[in-house]
């Protein structure tokens, strides 16, 4: 099959269709059949390949092994998150997705954020989800985990969205240089090793965390404070809602009968 015959638009269209189809096959629809499951994954893989080819045709997508691996892991585990029949499996797959995302962020040079994703998301938020699952899980596979709400339309919507996004991403190109970029480039052009624009790539990696912190608490101090307040409000809010919602446990504990106030025994040594 000579892919050169296919125009990028056609490839994109095929990829979108296959994505929609594979998602639809994978989503829980009430009937569990192994062949459908494998077909869905196969089509998804083909669709992904189609996206990659379309992206190559549209623009230039370079090849980087690490990035590719990490991206694949992320995407596959992301798909598995949403199609798993069991919510616990979804949570586990989500953890893997987070690992993949952290890898992508590291490849992009955002070291702090990569680690922060693991720590905050996988460490705190995901654990919270698992706690809630433990408290609220159904016995056995619930019926509502085995069916989806409008799987076909949603799969189509998601696929079309993806196609649009890919199209617009693929059409990206470097525009004419802005004055700031030129100034930056002229500064950077003093250093002999950096080509035009390459200075931008290195400017974030050097002394990354310190500079990130400096930027955060420098220019965005107010936002940081607001975020802190937000966290406080969320904390208080969640406790307030929970405590109002349960009528028995806390109230009973507070309603002590007055007659049983215990006296200090006499023989307590001082």
């Amino acid at each position, binding site marked *: 099959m000579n892919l050169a015959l296919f125009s990028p638009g056609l490839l994109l269209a095929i990829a979108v269709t296959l994505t929609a189809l594979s998602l639809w096959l994978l989503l829980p629809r009430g009937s569990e059949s192994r062949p459908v499951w494998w077909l869905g994954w196969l089509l998804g893989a083909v669709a992904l390949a189609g996206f990659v080819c379309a992206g190559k045709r549209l623009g230039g997508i370079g090849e980087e092994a690490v990035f590719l691996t990490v991206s694949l892991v992320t995407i596959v585990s992301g798909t598995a998150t949403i199609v798993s029949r069991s919510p616990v499996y979804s949570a586990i797959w989500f953890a893997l997705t987070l690992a993949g995302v952290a890898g992508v962020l590291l490849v992009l040079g955002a070291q702090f954020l990569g680690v922060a994703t693991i720590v905050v998301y996988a460490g705190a938020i995901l654990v919270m989800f698992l706690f809630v699952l433990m408290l609220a899980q159904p016995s056995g596979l619930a019926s509502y985990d085995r069916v989806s*709400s*409008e799987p076909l*339309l*949603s799969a189509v*919507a998601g696929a*079309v*969205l993806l196609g*649009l996004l890919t*199209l*617009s991403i693929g059409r990206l190109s470097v525009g004419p240089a802005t004055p700031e970029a030129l100034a930056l480039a002229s500064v950077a052009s003093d250093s002999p090793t950096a080509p035009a624009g390459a200075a931008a790539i290195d400017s974030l990696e050097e002394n990354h965390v310190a500079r990130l912190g400096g930027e955060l608490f420098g220019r965005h101090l107010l936002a940081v404070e607001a975020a802190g307040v937000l966290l406080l409000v969320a904390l208080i809010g969640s406790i307030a809602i929970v405590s109002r919602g349960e009528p028995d446990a806390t109230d009973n504990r507070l309603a002590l009968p007055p007659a049983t106030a215990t006296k200090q025994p006499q023989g307590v040594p001082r």
Partner: protein
Amino acid sequence: MENISPSTLLMLVPLLPLAGAILTLLFGKALGSRAHLPAIAGIAGAALGSLVLLVGTSLEVGVAAGVHAEPVRPVEMITPLWQWATVENAYTPAADTQAAIPGTPLSATTHEARPFSITVALRLDPLTATMLAIITCVGLLVAIYSIGYMHHDPGYPRFFSLFALFVFSMTMLVAASNFLIVYVFWEAVGACSYLLIGFWFHKPEAARAAKKAFLVNRIGDFGLAVAVFLLWMSYGTLDFHDTLSANGTIVPGILGQTRLADAGGYQLSDAAGFAGGTIGTVICLLLLLAACGKSAQVPLHVWLPDAMEGPTPASALIHAATMVTAGVYLVTRCAPLFVAYPGALVMVSIVGATTAMIAALIATVQNDLKRVLAYSTISQLGYMFASLGTGTLLGFTAAIFHLLTHAFFKALLFLGAGSVMHSMGGVIDMRRFGGLRRVMPITAATFLCGACALAGVAPFAGFFSKDEILATLHSKAWPEAHGNHQQESPAAGHANTEMSRLMPTALISSAGTAPVGSPSGNAASVKDGLNSLNRPDVWRVLFLMSLVTAGLTAFYTFRAVFMTFTGPVCVPEEAGHSVHESPPVMTLPLVLLAAASVVSGWVLWSTDWLAHFLSATPSLTFAAVAQTAVAPVFHLNLAIQGTLAAAIGIVIAAIGHLGRRSDGPQMERFLGPFGTLFANQFWFDQLYSGLIIKPFMLLATLAAIIDRSVIDGLVECVARVPLAIGGLLRQLQSGMLQRYALAGVMGVLLMVLALAWQLRS
């Protein structure tokens, strides 16, 4: 009093009853049992005024006339009231409608555009004066009678206001000098008749009868309306009298002096593609249709017997003396129009004589006293039409003479029947009472006077008028026996020789002699067909029919008299214990009318005053009519024939119903199958019901169905569209949150797609 001008008096004659009607309407409830006062006062004033006008006009005629042999000068007085409508340049006579302005040579420039203008004008001429006197005097007597008759009725004030309103409408009808105004009041008397027939509207039969009367009259009104349209088209004006146009030229009225003086003034030419004379014949036939509707001639007679559901005084005034004579008045007024078209004229007589006979036959088997009188009215009106259709001066004056005497004795008979009904507790079936002459002597005596007048017993009034009618019919049937004033029997549509002597040659070629192979085929042959009926043998048949009808009239009248007033006294239970003579307020009019029935005929005939007086009416001074004037002569042979017929009728009635046999049904058994035919009124009602009413009901039902399902359905469909759309949209509100989110996402995607499509390049 002497300083009141005739114009003012002429205006007062209709206005006083109108004022009475309005006052009764406003204050009737407050006046209570005296609610009759305004109406009676108004009608009495009108009666006085019309008598004064009658006297004045007759003096004027006396001054104008000389010896009989000279043509009588027309006497008329026009009182314009106001201009009702004016449309400038509404009518331009076609270049060859010479009937538009008679006597002027053919030229386009002489026929300038005229305005459509209706002047409400009152006229006073002998015919109008006579009619006014009859209407108001008889109306006054009947109104006085109604004081007693309607005494206990809860609708007492309403009755009198309607009564006075009717008198106003009728007087305006006979005094109007414009065809459109006549039409207006033609409808007005129809409306008053409807209101009076349906006076007791809670009774379903009365409501139905009123509706029937109005609808049948409507058919006649349609004829009158179309006739008015055609008259406007042909003559360019609707006035009877001559008027002056804006630039001083005389616009000749349809019955004005200018046109009447011209013998060819009514010959309409081949304008607008009609064959010569067709449009004139059509106009006359339509006027005849209108007269049939109002005067209850066949085939529009079906409403009059049912109209007896109304109160008896209303029947007496409207359906005996005045409203039904409007048709006779109209034909007499339009005498020149009819005489110019002999075909239409002979149709008038045929219709009249046929109606007279049919109605008389039906009346012989009626058991309801008022029904007998109703059919008798139809029959006598038929007599008047038969007389009008002869087209001679004697014919017209005899018809009006009979109208006058008929007004007296028929009103008398109706009031007498009302008196009987009043004391019999509402029962009017003759088989249920008898021998009432011992109980109600005055009523019986006056009723007998009226019956003799109706039957044509000499020297009562009816004898003379009926004799004159028979005379004029005889003169048409046996023209050679009547000397030198006949119209010869025309061949194939040819006008008579006297007329041809008077008309210019140009008109003869265009008007009468339409050759058999004329290009305008059908219409000419219809006219010729009608004209061909104007033969002596047709007239002979009509004469014989009238004679037989005279005998039948006497029969059924005296059958009614014998069944009601002779024999053993028999009173139905509804009468209770109040069987007595009517109070004086009711018997006084009876006596007065009886006196009139007795003497009026003899007086008017012996002095020949009425005929002489009426001959001064402008319409009757038309050459073709005035030429036929004869010296008043007593036709002994006709008198003998008439009296013989009446005597035979009375004797047969006596054999069947006098005395002890007064409740016997012998005559009905004698008639056999004919009796069924007559008793079912020749099945006219059933025929109309099947032919006309049922299809209309079907059409109405169909229209109702279409209205309900199609039209309302369409409207409902328009309403159902939003409902349907809402029903569809409602499905979106499922309560499933994820579907809502999906809808949002798809909406965003659509917008983005649209944007991307726009920006693709």
